């Protein structure tokens, strides 16, 4: 069942680096992360890689495997032939720290700019009443494991460092949509979405949706509705609030 595979793994840091070849054993049922760990344990003790859960739940182990953005822990070796060379390099959109580890602080900075969930002041903890159908839309987006694969593939920032200050990427535009669709949220983040997070840059190519390991319909369910909402109600705060509470299409009725 075991065989020897050829791996090319990018080794280096911000100053530069190169692919290095490893010949390494592969056993039945293993995933790419297992092989990276075997290389680390037997051939390259200082090979840097992030991981935690090894079950697709934490979003730590993102990399590009044979050019495809993937979670290494969910990429089974059986998807390659035994002869195929498996190439692993760090995700491209973020600066390299070392080997497969990149500097993802961009994402934490964008996250910090979003106004938190803002319930009405008169609703006390324990008093929230919401129907399952009304929470499901936001729940879909809350499945996000923050692997940043969608951020990695979005062409607006993938090879355009200059767009990073003006564009927050699909993950954080979706976070805005999630809050906007929360039945009890009262804040208005349309201006943030449009002006600071660059919603207008998105031309709905759906590349983000295609790579999402959680199968979240980022473009259809979050980005497009956000675009509609921004256009619909642009700079009309009163009308916006009215819709927010009354319209069955925006925020739904409460439980």
């Amino acid at each position, binding site marked *: 069942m075991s065989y020897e595979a050829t791996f090319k793994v990018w080794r280096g*840091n911000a100053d530069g680096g190169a692919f290095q070849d490893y010949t390494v054993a592969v*056993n*039945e*049922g*293993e*995933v790419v992360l*297992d092989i990276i760990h075997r290389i*680390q*344990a*037997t051939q*390259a*003790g*200082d*090979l*840097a890689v*992030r*991981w*935690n*859960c*090894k*079950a*697709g*739940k*934490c*979003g*730590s182990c993102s990399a590009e495997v044979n050019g495809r953005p993937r979670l290494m822990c*969910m990429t*089974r070796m059986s998807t390659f032939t035994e002869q195929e060379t498996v190439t692993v390099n760090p995700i491209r959109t973020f600066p390299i*720290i*070392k*080997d497969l*580890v990149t500097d*993802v602080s961009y994402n*934490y900075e964008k*996250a*910090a700019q979003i*106004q*938190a*969930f803002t*319930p009405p002041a008169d*609703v*006390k*903890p*324990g008093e*929230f*009443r*919401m*129907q*399952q159908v009304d*929470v499901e839309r*936001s*729940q879909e987006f*809350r*499945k996000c*494991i*923050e692997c940043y694969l969608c951020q990695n593939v979005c062409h607006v920032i993938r090879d355009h460092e200059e767009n990073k200050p003006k564009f927050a990427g699909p993950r954080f535009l979706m976070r805005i949509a999630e*809050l906007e669709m*929360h039945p009890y949220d009262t804040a208005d983040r349309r201006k943030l979405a449009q002006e600071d997070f660059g919603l207008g840059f998105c031309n709905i190519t759906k590349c983000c949706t295609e790579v999402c390991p959680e199968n979240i319909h980022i473009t259809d369910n979050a980005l497009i509705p956000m675009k509609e909402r921004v256009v619909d109600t642009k700079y009309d705060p009163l009308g916006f609030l009215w819709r927010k509470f009354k319209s069955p299409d925006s925020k739904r009725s*409460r*439980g």
Partner: protein
Amino acid sequence: MSEIERHAYDVVVIGAGGSGLRAAIEAHEQGARTAIVCKSLLGKAHTVMAEGGIAAAMGNVWEQDNWQVHFRDTMRGGKMLNHWRMAQLHAQEAPDRVYELEAWGALFDRTKEGKISQRDFGGHRYARLAHVGDRTGLEMIRTLQQRAVSLGIDVFMECTVTQLLKDGDRIAGAFGYWRESGRFVCFEAPAVVLATGGIGKTFQITSNSWEYTGDGHALALRAGATLINMEFVQFHPTGMVWPPSVRGILITESVRGEGGVLRNSENKRFMFDYISEYFKQETADSEDEADRWYGDHVNNRRPPELLPRDEVARAINSEVKAGRSSPHGGVFLDVATRRSAEDIQRRLPSMYHQFKELADVDITKEPMEVAPTCHYVMGGVEVDPDTAQSIVPGLYAAGEVAGGMHGSNRLGGNSLSDLLVFGKRAGEYAAQYATGLDARPAIADADLDGAGRHALAPFESDSGENPYTVHQDLQKTMQSLCGIIRKEEELRQAIDVLQEYKQRVPHTSVEGNRQYNPGWHLALDLYNMLLVSECLARAALERTESRGGHTREDFPQADPVWGTKNIVCRAEGDGVAIAAQPLPEMPDELKKLFEEPAE
């Protein structure tokens, strides 16, 4: 080492899981200058992996539920070895902590009335677990993370603490390194909250991640604090078995809560053969009654598949030993014949996904193969129940790293609630302590130098052993000699072998430089795993009975005398000294709760 990076805070929280985040939020809200330090990126701590739910007696599904019932279930689940006061506070405060999460943006699954829905779990008399599908931990950590970020709390991510610093008998701060650069950093703080999680990486088959190297347990011991209940390790009954690379990955108990049953190679629902005297009164004795229970908890008793985890894990172990195992040495967990494909996909989406992707098994059509996996440590830092303070002034502990709350066995869902209840308390009292001091403790330069030298030692020796190899060997030792079923000669052997590791660990050497070097990080973590392993082995040898997460082949019964004692570990020389200590006495009004009949 005067040029070292320094930061000054009132409260430093080590750990960014549920307990650490909750502690930091509370400390911040009490007005303390607060920082969080964690080994992984923010949002990746173990808590993110929790699946099933948060136990809290909100009574949304069964209005008969209340804190007294939850308290009683928790104590009985822990075989009465829990600290009664912790179990009481936990049961009383958990509902408010859950409601708070909702007010911070968490979106739990709902009941028809629009309240937070609650699901069944092992050992809980009523459906009690607030949940979001089977990704409750993700919802919890994201909510707390977003709350902490919006409050502007400083987070030092990918930063590992290797030593606590003291001024006399009290805490003065913490020393660590940035994983990215390998540079050292010193936190000056009169109060430190340990929220570092568990020790699972000392075992070979485990549901735990690389972070679970017992750092907080070891930091506490070395700082002079005590650990209790270290012999009690929870082996979760349902870990994945096949293929080998996923061995140990967790299958949530919700599969059984949602109707899944265990069968052996003869297709028998074998759990009916393993109902102990202790749980007889409250457990169904026929498949019919067990199946009716899902619709009517009041007139039927609970299925034996939902007995506490220690009971189920031992039963699976026995079936496998008796030769009635599934093809790869586990037993079958079947939900496919019990619930519709649609229900399974909706209620257990991440389990469906996990099996499909990792094992080529469609759980809506086929049974899963399962076997016990090391999951949780009941033992931890001995703390004051109300304040979460250890015996060292200024040192607090909450979450999995703290001991006492769960006694000899933790009920599912009681960890997430524990994190919230005691995380909040630790943050609150740490803040009060720190801001109430007249003078800030000082850190001695010599201590920083010593901590730095220790951290760099693995770069000094170049002829030493590979830390990965030493780790794998240690895991094998613990798995085979201190695992789910224990006996005297093996525990003695374990203690001997651990002495040999004391020679090996300081002689590991690492390649490369200090920049993001996992081999170096592991070499340092090994010291912690070794110390924790010794606690475990010594306490397990001492406790000559079987109870909860500690099973002795040579002493298969629970011993009422041991039922009144904790084993306490403290650091002594380069090893561990243990002593028995009487359990605190439960007040009479709580004792009464155990006199009523079980049903």
